């Protein structure tokens, strides 16, 4: 699965740690998500989508 998390985070000027705080996960998890090494659970995907005001499909797409 690919995602636009890094792009969306950068557009807000947030660091990985700041995004992690907003999502209540570790910075390592944000890093793994951005690098496509870890696919989030559905609840986390919804939190990400809600945080950026987009739909899940806007952010995540299958390979």
């Amino acid at each position, binding site marked *: 699965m690919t995602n636009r998390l890094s792009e969306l985070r950068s557009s807000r000027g*947030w660091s990985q*740690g*700041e995004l*992690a705080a*907003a999502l209540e*996960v*570790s*910075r390592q998890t944000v890093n793994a998500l951005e690098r496509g*090494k870890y696919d*989030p659970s559905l609840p986390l995907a919804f939190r990400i989508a809600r945080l950026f005001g987009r739909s899940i499909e806007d952010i995540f797409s299958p390979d």
Partner: protein
Amino acid sequence: MKPETYEVSAGPGSQLYGLYVAAIATALGGNLLVRIAERAGWLGPAGRVGLAAVAVVPLIAGAVVFWRWLRRDLDEMVQRIVLEGLAFAFIIYLPIAALLVNLRTAGAWVPRLDPADMLLSPALLVAIGIVLAWRRVQ
């Protein structure tokens, strides 16, 4: 608005793992003391049974702390890494243990398994499993 800067360290996990190893060492120390007491005729059978049981109390306390930590404090990815480490240990340890038991029953030579081997091997396998799972997401 920017969220507050937030950094999760591996500290609590490392501390908990260290506590677990210390608890295992305590259990092994208790085992050693029981054997020494038996040879020296100290404490009596009831005392030795008590000592054997008390030596395991730190492991039980560690299990409670570990369960709370796993359920409440870890985010989903780290939780998964820890669980994969535990699964790795279980998957590797069980067939090896079964093989050794069966070979011994069949009269084949097998390395002598003492309490230290039995207790520390799973801890080592969990650590290896966590490292392998962690490397996969980095």
